[in-house]
């Protein structure tokens, strides 16, 4: 629990109590699932964007590959959560190894472009070949099984699954950013040329950050079909990567907690506005522009208005 401050414990306890609140419907529990999953992905991306200073436009591919890993296994009768997550780690890990090796060989906009191009290739493969169902993807998946006899079938159980994942991923990220490794990532963000002169093989550290971020995102992807019962190529579309980036930005770069809030906020906003109007992205766009212009530190920056505490991230 060293990685968890008492505030994190309180927040997770409150989140764990959500299904106990009377009157919380299926719909809200599943919306909460999506919000926390999106938050977990934004947090993983924050390791790259906020701490290492690398912007990935290809995280949707890690997410989508994780989802397909689960879907492919489930289609063949494997329902174990652990098997699906393990398979997703393998698939996403192999893909991320290739992407991160080539992408980290270049800097700035080239890194961003390479991640995007790799992701588009993966998207095209899943969308335009019939290998894994083409544009329909893989549909009608059964419920996953956590342990023999414990099926993740109700919205409450699905919600607890994603909450448990978020807690583990958050603990991993917290430990990581406070470690030797995390400190070097920040140095790379600040001045990668100087970091080399301190004896750090910058590309290896960047690759490490990419791999960890990709694997966390891949596991989030693996969990998604356990709620939706499908995996489609749309999960890998570049707009999905864009939404991850937006979530990190509106939450607050380099804070971990901020992007969780940003991802959740984005998901809920999209859900609420799209249920009212079709042109919901115009509304969301205006909200996001206001946040970016007037809250450069993101939603988490608001805490500064309420407390005098100095952020030390």
């Amino acid at each position, binding site marked *: 629990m060293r990685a968890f401050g008492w505030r994190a414990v309180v927040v997770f306890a409150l989140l764990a109590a959500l299904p106990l609140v009377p009157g919380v419907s299926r719909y809200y529990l599943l919306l909460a699932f999506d919000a926390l999953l999106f938050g977990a992905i934004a947090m993983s991306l924050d390791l790259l964007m906020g701490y290492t200073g690398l912007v990935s436009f290809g995280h949707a591919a890690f997410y989508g590959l994780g989802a397909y890993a689960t879907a492919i296994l489930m289609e063949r009768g494997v329902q174990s959560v652990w098997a699906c997550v393990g398979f997703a780690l393998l698939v996403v890990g192999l893909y991320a190894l290739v992407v991160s090796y080539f992408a980290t060989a270049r800097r700035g906009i080239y890194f961003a472009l390479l991640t995007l191009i790799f992701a588009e290739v993966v998207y095209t493969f899943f969308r335009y070949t019939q290998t894994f169902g083409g544009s329909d993807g893989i549909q009608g998946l059964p419920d996953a099984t956590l342990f023999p006899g414990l099926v993740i079938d109700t919205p409450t159980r699905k919600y607890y699954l994603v909450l448990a994942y978020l807690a583990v991923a958050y603990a991993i990220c917290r430990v990581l950013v406070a470690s030797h*490794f995390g*400190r070097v990532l920040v140095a790379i963000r*600040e*001045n990668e040329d*100087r970091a080399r002169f301190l004896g750090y093989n910058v590309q290896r550290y960047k690759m490490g950050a990419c791999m960890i971020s990709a694997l966390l995102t891949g596991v989030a992807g693996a969990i998604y079909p356990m709620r939706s019962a499908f995996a489609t190529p749309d999960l890998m579309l570049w707009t999905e990567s864009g939404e991850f980036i937006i979530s990190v930005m509106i939450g607050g770069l380099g804070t971990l907690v901020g992007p969780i809030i940003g991802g959740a906020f984005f998901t809920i906003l999209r859900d609420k506005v799209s249920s009212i109007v079709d042109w919901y992205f115009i509304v969301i766009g205006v909200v996001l522009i206001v946040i970016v212009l007037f809250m450069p530190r993101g939603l988490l920056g608001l805490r500064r208005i309420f407390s005098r505490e100095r952020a030390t991230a």
Partner: protein
Amino acid sequence: MILEVDDVSKRFGALAALTRVSFGVEAGQVFSVIGPNGAGKSTLFNVVSGLFAPNTGRVRFRGEDITGLPPERVNRLGLAKTFQITNVFPEISVLDNVRVAAQSRAPESGRPSSLWRRPDVDGTVVALLEAFGLAARGEAHAKNLSHGEQRYLEICVALATSPTLLLLDEPTAGMTPGETRDATALIRKVVLERGLTLLLIEHDMSVVMGISDRVAVLHFGEKIAEGTPDAIRHDPRVIEAYLGGGDD
């Protein structure tokens, strides 16, 4: 001989930045490379520290050929460098600047355990900051330091990697004459205390004469003289290079 630069040339397109430069630095020496602006001094440092590979010639450090090794490898062999234009980590604290440098020599560095452990290097870090009068500024962001403080931080960051050979590229650049005197005295003191070898670049001759054991002079990328400070001071070619300029 701790550092041997042997017949090194470096060209950038048509520009010959260094032409067949050779010299050697003995362990424990303060060796200075001087020359007017544009003489090739920084290029020489960049070749020695691994940023550029030379077109010809070899660089040996403690007997090992380091020609063309990347900066991170050269640094791990015990050679640290500062920059003429302050080159630190602007948006993190002074303490964290020096910590990230110091921890590169921790046993965790490069091992899987570096993913979850954070080595405690604060003893070394605080001692360095105290030596350079920055202890009270530890929590400040590096970008908020005064120019003089940033120049000292630059040296602290390099020293934190526990080098045996320290390369300082115009450490007093932009300082007033008074600050320059203080800084020079302080650098000399720290180098002596730690038993380091110092290779110093300066364009201002007066800075190096008092602290150097040996001085080499670069002019238009060529070494035109080498010797004790006294010999250099009276060398007609050196006087010509400094006073005559490049017109005739």
